[in-house]
């Protein structure tokens, strides 16, 4: 009986450790994942906090300097409305271009998003090129 109890204590300890690690991990590493609208309505409340925002790269808004690796663009809806300026320093992701859907990870402060990571989705399916294009 004693052995069984020791064994159960061991099992409970492992389960407890796993639970604690998950709990602590979520608490320290989780961040909000907003759509652009969700972000627009709550951005002041989440200023200076790491978060992810999904949106589209507004047409005509992209400025990229390959000498300094400074990227500036506006995150907007698919129809280019409600733009939010984004600043990023780093290498331009391959799939990044105007009109594309992106997720940026960064902080909002002073009216703009300072991104430290830009994620572009790379769909394995491509629409066939439209006639004439």
């Amino acid at each position, binding site marked *: 009986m004693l052995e069984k109890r020791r064994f159960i204590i061991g099992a409970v300890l492992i389960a407890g450790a796993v639970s604690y690690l998950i709990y602590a991990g979520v608490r320290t590493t989780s*961040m909000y994942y907003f759509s652009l609208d969700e972000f627009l309505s709550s951005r002041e409340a989440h200023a200076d906090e790491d978060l992810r925002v999904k949106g589209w790269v507004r047409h005509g808004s992209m400025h990229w300097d390959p000498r300094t690796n400074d990227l500036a663009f506006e995150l907007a809806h698919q129809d280019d409305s409600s733009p939010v300026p984004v600043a990023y320093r780093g290498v331009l992701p391959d799939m990044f271009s105007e009109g594309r859907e992106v997720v940026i990870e960064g902080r909002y402060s002073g009216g703009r998003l300072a991104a430290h990571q830009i994620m572009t989705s790379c769909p394995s399916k491509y629409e066939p090129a439209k006639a004439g294009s």
Partner: protein
Amino acid sequence: MPALGRLAICLALLFAAYATGVSILGALRRRRHLVRSGEHAAYAVFALVVVAVAILLRALVQHDFSLEYVAAYSSSTLPLRYTVAALWGGQKGSLLFWAFMLTLFTTIVQLQNRERNRELMPWVTATLMTTAAFFLGLLTFVTDPFERLPIAAREGADLNPLLQNYWMTIHPPSLYTGYVSASVPFAFAIAALATGRLGDQWIRSVRRWSLFSWFFLTLGNLFGARWAYEVLGWGGYWAWDPVENAAFMPWLVSTAYLHSVMIQEKKDMLRVWNMVLVLLTFSLTIFGTFLTRSGVISSVHSFTQSGLGPFFIGFLLFVLVVAGGLLAYRLPELRTQATVESFLSRESAFLFNNLVLVGIAFAVFWGTVFPVVSEWVRGVKITVGPLFFNRVNAPLGIALLFLAGLGPAIAWRRASPPNLWRAFAGPVAAGLVAALALRLAGVPLGYAHSTFALGVFVLGTIVQEFWRGMRARQAMLHESPARALSRLVGKNRRRYGGYIIHIGVVAVFVGVAASSVFRVEVQQTLAPGQETAAGKFTLRYERITKQDDPHVSRLAAVVSVWRDGKAVTTLAPEKRFYKKPQQPTTEVAMRATLTEDLYLVLGSYDEQSGLVTILAYVNPLVSWIWIGGIVMALGTTVAMWPTPAERREPAYALGRVRAATD
């Protein structure tokens, strides 16, 4: 021809439904001819799926762009090997490929069991054919691989350039093989539950299938990591993306099963637990397929949102309800009296190992679905990134490594102090000496240090096992050392194959720990002739070179590399611009050695100033991950290899295959 392909799939669906129904009926009414009829129908399903696959392959190779699938995933300039790989490069093709593997395995299982497991077989056939019917149903009603375009395209849109890579041609088939072969143990588990034959019989029948599935899941995960490392260009090999997690979770649970099943065979314990692990592994393969195809959880490289999600969730619920119901029904019969006798025993080491593995699987699952759960519960999406997975899994991984050293050497039932001393004095001493030596060599305390020291401990126990086994044979049978060693492994393939796998696991752990903790990352913008340092390396950007052909144009930065002041190589990281899906890609340049990889990426190039931005990563010991993978594959092959007594059976089955195909 495409119409014929569609017809083959529709017929296959009908036959699969018939096979399921007639097998169950035959089992319930105990009619042999019905059971045989079900098996014959299953062979027909396989033959029909082969026809469909052949027709789709033919359309791909002949560039029949009137088919939507061919036009979407290939082009007339795509090299042949990638044209063939396009068979599983898109969603529809991959589902057809899945059906192909599943019906192939069904055929093999039936041939293996023509004279064996006759009570179980109708249920095995029914389970496999139900799964096949699910996939064939999707192909028939939801997503038709033989769909025609209203007007045939003149040219295809081509395969995604990121998939045009050697590892990507072998990664998906390996993973699918691992996923799909997990259906076989699952089918036997369902058969055992349905018939009430809950003893060891079903477990022994699927032992090799479980290993086979695990083997390919292992390879599939490693090939995927290798692909990510070579192609994605961010300097790492694992990003905890949902798609990666989808492949990792069944591997973890399957690993747990391979360990705990030994306890059942030896001690007749854990019957319920093993059953749960088999059911869970299969459910996780379906869940993984769901993850990669539904778009429910945003992933960096998933299939596009496709509307298939609800079907997979529906099928998953069906599986869970049926399997869970059967399990609950048989629960009283499954329970056994045997319990763990001692806290210090191999049984308990294996059980703790199981808890840790399932714990890791749960943590990965939780992190993966967290955005969806938080959206349900709180109305906002909250994500956790790679940091979460690393923080949770690093300590659990360390615990697992420790148990990997404990498990093989500790005594069954109850370990006495003399036994513990005899088993662990040497390995523990080796681990402590290594820990001290590493500290003196300047390795800071932390995860990497613990991993290295524990790795030495684990290797110590394994070497000791081999050594003692060999000495015993030498003393008793007067064999030469080489002969004693090969006989030792040959007579206990599963045990020593397992030890070899553990050696590979240690190598993977060491590679992962070193490259995670000690990696150096440098980003520098350089003019021609300028230099920068990255760890022990000095890099000089020499010039840019350009190349252009109809398929792709390339831009390469030529970089001279010195290590500790000595010129070692010249590397040329590239940017490529694919022309058909107009898309730039990054082509990594690498110098890989056993001690470290120098990994260069061309970040950007400014035409006017001639400036380039180079990203340089120095990743220590990454090669050991791939070497560890090869060792694991070797070990699994040793463990799977038939013993002389068993060897007659496959030959017999092979004879049957010949008879059936003549």
